[in-house]
C-alpha cells in the first residue's frame, strides 16, 4: 500500500488529480455553508455577468447564482458517479466472477450477454431507460449502472480464469475449503488492482453520462446538476456565455482529474499497464 502511494505521489498527473478531487469533495461538502441560499432561488438580477454584484460566476436567466449551482451540482455529480459505479461494480464483479470461476456453459452464456450489452448503443439505452422510468436519482443511477458494467465483467472474468489455475487456489481447493471462501478470500483480493483502476475511470464516465442525461432534460428534477445548468444556459448562450461555460469547465476538470488519478493508479499498481490503452 505504501509503495503504491509513493508511486502515485511521484506521478504529477495523479497527484494533481487527487488534489483537485479533494477540492471538489470539499466544495460539495460545504456547499450549504458557502451558499446558504438554495441554488434554485433567485439570488440577483438575471444575466449578471461574472464578477458583478458579488456573483463570482454570474447569474442565469432566472437570476440564479451559477457558482451556487456548481457547488450544489458537485454533490449530485459525485454522488451519482460514485453510487452508479458501485452498482455497476456489483453487477460486473458478480457476473464476471461467476463466468470466470464456473467456466463452461455458464461462462459462454454470460459472455454472450456481456457482448450483447457492449453491442447496443449504450447512451441511447441509458436515455430510453431514464425516460421510461421517469427521471429520478434511482433511475439515473440504475441506467448508468446497466450500461457500464460489461467492461468490469470482462476484466473480472479474465482475472478469475487465470487466478483459478494458480497453485495457491488449487492448494485451497485441496484443503477442502468452501467455494465461497476460496472466491472471497483467495481470488477476489488478488483480482482487486485492475478493478480499482477500472472503477476510478468508471466514475469519470458516469459523471460524463449523468451530465449528458441532465443536459437532455433527463436529470432528477429536484437536484441541481452541472448538465442541467448547461442545458438551461444553451438557449441564452448569445446573451450569457458564462451560464454554459463554467459548469462545463467543472465537468471537464473533475473528469480529467479522475482519469489522471485512474491512470496513475494503474501505473502504480501494475507497471505493465503503462503502455496500455483503455476502452
Amino acid at each position, binding site marked *: 500500500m505504501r509503495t503504491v502511494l509513493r508511486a502515485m505521489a511521484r506521478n504529477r498527473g495523479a497527484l494533481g488529480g487527487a488534489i483537485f478531487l479533494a477540492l471538489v469533495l470539499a466544495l460539495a461538502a460545504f456547499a450549504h455553508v458557502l451558499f446558504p441560499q438554495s441554488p434554485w432561488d433567485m439570488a440577483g438580477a438575471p444575466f449578471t455577468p461574472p464578477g458583478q454584484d458579488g456573483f463570482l460566476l454570474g447569474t442565469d436567466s432566472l437570476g440564479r447564482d451559477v457558482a451556487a449551482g456548481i457547488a450544489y451540482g458537485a454533490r449530485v455529480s459525485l454522488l451519482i458517479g460514485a453510487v452508479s459505479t458501485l452498482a455497476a461494480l456489483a453487477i460486473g464483479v458478480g457476473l464476471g466472477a461467476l463466468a470466470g470461476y464456473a467456466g463452461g456453459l455458464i461462462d459462454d452464456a454470460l459472455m454472450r450477454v456481456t457482448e450483447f450489452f457492449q453491442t447496443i448503443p449504450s447512451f*441511447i439505452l441509458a436515455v430510453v431507460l431514464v425516460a421510461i422510468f421517469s427521471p429520478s436519482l434511482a433511475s439515473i443511477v440504475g441506467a448508468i449502472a446497466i450500461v457500464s458494467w460489461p467492461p468490469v465483467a470482462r476484466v473480472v472474468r479474465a482475472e478469475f480464469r487465470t487466478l483459478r489455475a494458480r497453485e495457491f487456489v488449487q492448494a485451497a481447493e485441496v484443503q477442502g475449503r468452501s467455494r465461497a471462501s476460496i472466491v472471497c478470500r483467495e481470488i477476489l483480493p488478488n483480482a482487486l488492482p485492475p478493478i480499482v483502476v477500472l472503477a476510478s475511470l468508471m466514475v469519470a464516465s458516469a459523471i460524463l453520462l449523468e451530465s449528458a442525461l441532465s443536459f437532455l432534460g433527463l436529470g432528477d428534477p429536484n437536484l441541481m446538476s452541472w448538465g442541467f445548468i448547461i442545458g438551461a444556459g444553451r438557449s441564452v448562450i448569445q446573451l450569457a456565455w458564462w451560464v454554459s461555460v463554467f459548469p462545463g469547465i467543472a465537468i471537464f476538470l473533475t473528469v480529467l482529474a479522475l482519469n489522471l488519478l485512474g491512470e496513475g493508479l494503474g501505473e502504480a499498481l501494475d507497471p505493465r499497464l503503462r503502455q496500455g490503452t483503455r476502452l
Partner: protein
Amino acid sequence: MSSSPDLAANVPAPSASLQAGLARSLLGLALRGAARLAKMLAVLLAIAIVNFLLIHLAPGDPATVLAGQSGAADPQFIAQLRHSFGLDRPLLVQLWLYLRHIAMLDLGTSYTQDRPVLGLILDRLPATLLLTGAAFAFALIAGIALGALAARRAGKATDTAVTILALAFYATPIFWVGLMLVLVFSVWLGWLPSFGMETVGAGYRGLDHWLDVGRYLILPALTLGLFYMAVYARLTRAAMVEVAGQDFIRTARAKGLTEGRILRRHILRNALLPVVTFAGIQAGQLIGGSVLVEAVFAWPGIGQLAFNALLARDYPVLLGVFLCTAAMVVVFNLATDLLYRLIDPRMAP
C-alpha cells in the same frame, strides 16, 4: 458462347488435393458467414426482446406506453392497441405478437406526428449518416495522423502536446464542446451557422446546395469527431510504439531503409490493424453520440427525432430509434469483421 474443348484442355487441371482444399475453405467461409448471420439475427432478436421488456417494465399500462403519451391518447386507439398486441393474453403470446410486429417492420405510430415510426426514422436517416460519416472520417484521419506524429516523436514536446490534447478531449462532455464551438465560431466570430442543416429559404441547387450543407456540417461533425479523434490518437500512438519495438523493424533498419519508409510502410501499416478494428466496433457508438450533437445543433437526423420524442415522451419513436440504431451497430460490426478478414490474411479461415 460455348468454350471450345481444346481451350479448356490447355488449362492445367488442378490437382485433386488442391480442389478438395479449395472446397473445404469455401465451405468454411460459408459456414462462418452463416454463423455470423445467425449471431446477428440473435442479437437483433435480443434487442427486440429488450424493447418488449422496457414497454412492460415501464410504470403504468403498457398500452399507454405503446400509444405514447399516458392519459392523452384516445380510448378507442388504446383499445385497438390492446387487441392488436394481445395485452389481455399471456405474456409469451404478447411477446410473440410484438416480435411479429417488429419482423414486419411495424415499429408503431408516433402520436405527436401521427405517422409510422419507421417512415419517420428512414426520412431522417440520411442526415444522421452524413453527420456520423463525416465525423468518423475526420476522427480516423486526424486521430491516426496525430497518433503517428506523437509516436514518431515519442518522449518529445510534440508527443506530450498530443497526449495532453487527447486527454483533454477525452474528458470533455461532447455537448459542451458543441456549445463552445457555437460560442466561438458562430456567436463571437460569426463564421459558421450554429444550427440546422441548410440555409432556410435560400433555394440553393446542385453544388451550391452541397456547399451550403457543408458549411452547416463543419461544427457538428467536429463536435462529434473530436472525442473519437482523441481515442484513435491514443490507440495509434500506443500501437505504433509497440510495433516499433519489434524485431522486424530492426531488420528493416539494418537493411538500410530510410526512417520515413520504415514509419510509413512497416510501423504504421501494422499498427493500423488494431486501430481500424477498434474504430469499426466504435463506429456504432458514434450514432449514440450523434443524439447529443444533433440536439445541440438542431441537425435534422434521428438523434434530433429521439430528442424531440424525449421531450414529448413519444415512446414508440424513442424505442424505434433505439431498435434501429442497435440494428445499425450490428450491421456495422459485421461489415468491420468481414473487412478485417480482408485486411489481415491471418484472420481468414
